[in-house]
């Protein structure tokens, strides 16, 4: 793969809020999980755990406690913080690196999903307590973001905020800020 192909995947990835019923192959899901594994992690610690869900009944239950999940995903990867690993690394619980690691893993997975020709949308609008019950999560894991994965449905996407022209230039300053 050329650098231009990699950049094209980055440029063309979108949050997908409407998915078809078509199932996701296990091998594809494993590739996405592997992409998460290769995400940069602060101090090379492993603060993020992945929970992969394909069971239709469990997926339905998750959707019921996730008001932000407009998708009916055939697969979900839930990213959790492993607080045992945080404690083991003697990392303060309020260190932002913990959540940065969730973000890097998520982005790697979103890009891998897109590169595989699938669609994905991250969801944080779920009840963490209800998710804990539905998945019988151990106490040391907190669910942070659910990535809904499937095949994109041919339907318009609803922007959460007004569409605006964003460029890398509009997001960037060079060197030291002036007084």
């Amino acid at each position, binding site marked *: 793969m050329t650098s231009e192909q990699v950049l094209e995947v980055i440029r063309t990835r979108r949050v997908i809020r409407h998915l078809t019923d078509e199932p996701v192959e296990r091998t594809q899901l494993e590739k996405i999980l592997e992409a998460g594994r290769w995400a940069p992690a602060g101090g090379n610690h492993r603060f993020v755990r992945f929970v992969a869900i394909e069971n239709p009944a469990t997926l339905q239950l998750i959707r019921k406690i996730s008001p932000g999940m407009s998708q009916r995903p055939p697969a979900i990867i839930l990213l959790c913080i492993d607080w045992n690993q945080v404690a083991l690394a003697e990392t303060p619980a309020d260190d932002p690196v913990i959540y940065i690691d969730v973000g890097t893993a998520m982005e790697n997975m979103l890009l891998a999903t897109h590169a595989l020709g699938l669609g994905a949308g991250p969801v944080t609008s779920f*009840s963490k307590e209800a998710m804990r019950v539905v998945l019988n999560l151990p106490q040391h894991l907190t669910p942070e973001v659910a990535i809904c994965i499937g095949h994109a449905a041919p339907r318009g996407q609803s922007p959460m*905020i007004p569409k605006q022209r964003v460029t890398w230039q509009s997001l960037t300053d060079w060197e030291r800020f002036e007084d």
Partner: protein
Amino acid sequence: MAESLVLTEDEALELLAFFVTSARILQREPAKYGSMRLLMAAERVGEFALERSSPDTQEFLAAMAEDLDQAMMYMADHERFVDDMDAMCRKIAQYLVGRDETGGEA
């Protein structure tokens, strides 16, 4: 007045879960998400009730589903969203008034 039941037990529980989890999550989300969650709940009520409703209400719910879809597409455009919602509120009121006048048959 029509008294037929249009939700199953599972559907009622799903709505209950949606409302309660939404109430919790909205404590950490922007206030404007509240309108979106309520519209999503309305969408689910419409989907659930569609099959078991009277023919007139089915027609009303089908039209409402399209309106809801359209309104949510344009939530980011505040002026348009408010106009869309006002139009939907008028449609709902007209339908309710019609049903009231005909004893639930309209």
